[in-house]
């Protein structure tokens, strides 16, 4: 981003190298995120993959910009192939009950809510956007294609 000082650049490179090696070293039977349980919900698919669509540090700071940029690209220009889609965040980060039913991502303690509650952020996105993967559509297909997710288990909201 604009704030890239040399220091950050080195950190960035170091993170890349680390991520690369950790991929080789630890990718054998289970690929699990480091941050499960903090905000990443253990019953979400995110808990089963190694990392977010960008490194977690970057996501924590810039996710709102990524999503909002994606929003205009999709709504105004019809671009639906990129990984910053809001529906992708939901596909991967939605938690599940013991019975496997998806839990609304903005419910108390769930991924988007827990951190926002701590940071005093309120969103209106979920007035309109589905809070669990619901119905058919490009969104789920893109989520699977880009992110190598298991098939979406369907459920009405």
């Amino acid at each position, binding site marked *: 981003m604009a704030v890239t000082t040399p220091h950050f650049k080195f950190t960035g490179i170091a993170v890349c190298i680390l991520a690369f090696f950790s991929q080789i070293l630890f990718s054998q039977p289970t690929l699990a995120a480091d941050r499960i349980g903090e905000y990443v919900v253990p019953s979400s698919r995110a808990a089963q993959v190694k990392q977010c669509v960008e490194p977690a540090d970057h996501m924590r700071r810039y996710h709102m910009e990524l999503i909002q940029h994606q929003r205009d690209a999709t709504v105004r220009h019809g671009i639906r192939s990129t990984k910053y889609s809001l529906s992708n965040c939901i596909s991967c980060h939605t938690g599940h009950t013991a019975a496997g039913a998806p839990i609304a991502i903005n419910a108390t303690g769930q991924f988007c809510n827990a951190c926002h509650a701590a940071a005093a952020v309120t969103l209106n996105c979920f007035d309109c*956007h*589905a809070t669990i993967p619901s119905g058919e559509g*490009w969104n789920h297909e893109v989520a699977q294609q880009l992110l190598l997710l298991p098939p979406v288990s369907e459920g009405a909201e």
Partner: protein
Amino acid sequence: MTYASHSHSSPDAIDTPDSIDAVDTDRRQFLHYAAAGVATVALGGGAVLTTLTATAEPRTTPVTSTHRWGMLIDTTKCAAGCDACVTACERENGLNLQQSPTDDAADWADQQSAWIRKVTLRDNLTGQVTQLPLMCQHCAEPPCVDVCPTGASFKRADGIVMVDRHTCIGCRYCMMACPYQARSFVHQPVAQKLTQVPRGKGCVESCNLCVSRRDDDRQTSTACADACAASGQGAIVFGDLNDPNSPLHQALAQVNSRQIRQELNLNTGVRYAGL
């Protein structure tokens, strides 16, 4: 980061009819390794592979004015009492999930969102009755776009007129400006919606020619046109007005068609025959 490595393609698998399969196989192989323990073990390779074979081709580049989407509706084929297009539209866009906040059925019929309305015209002199589905006419010169104070009402490069709900303030000027009464306002919080079609209180909405289908190369039609064909009427032809070889263009060349409120010179994308 690590995801970048997934988009590899094998150089020997380009430009042959089988290349898609070849690339897919590759990706499947990759899936086996990359998602081991996630997809392959937990769910079985088969389930994953079938889903991935039907991979979407969602747009990667901005829409352009190469296409202009539109429809021809032959009112002589539109059957009285048939609402297949309306029902299909509701299902596609989650409008069937709307819940009435009132017991007053007539009131609700007025207020609920409808992207297509079935309209009956009666010529009082001759008594002739005509049926037609009326939706956003996707004008080349849309009055709703002219009056919108925030730029939320806009025309996409490929001719689709729609509302960017992120900038819509719900003033409803566009609803007043539309000569076709094609737009609806969402009055109530929306409890149930589809991932593909976000909708919520305080915004205006209308037919967007199944926009998420338009951004997927495999899709060639709209929900309403599909349903009309499936019900045997075949009154709706969807297609590209700019492409001389499209079925829509050919149909338009063969029949007399007109725009509703032609005198307004809005150059609508939806044309009617038999009016």
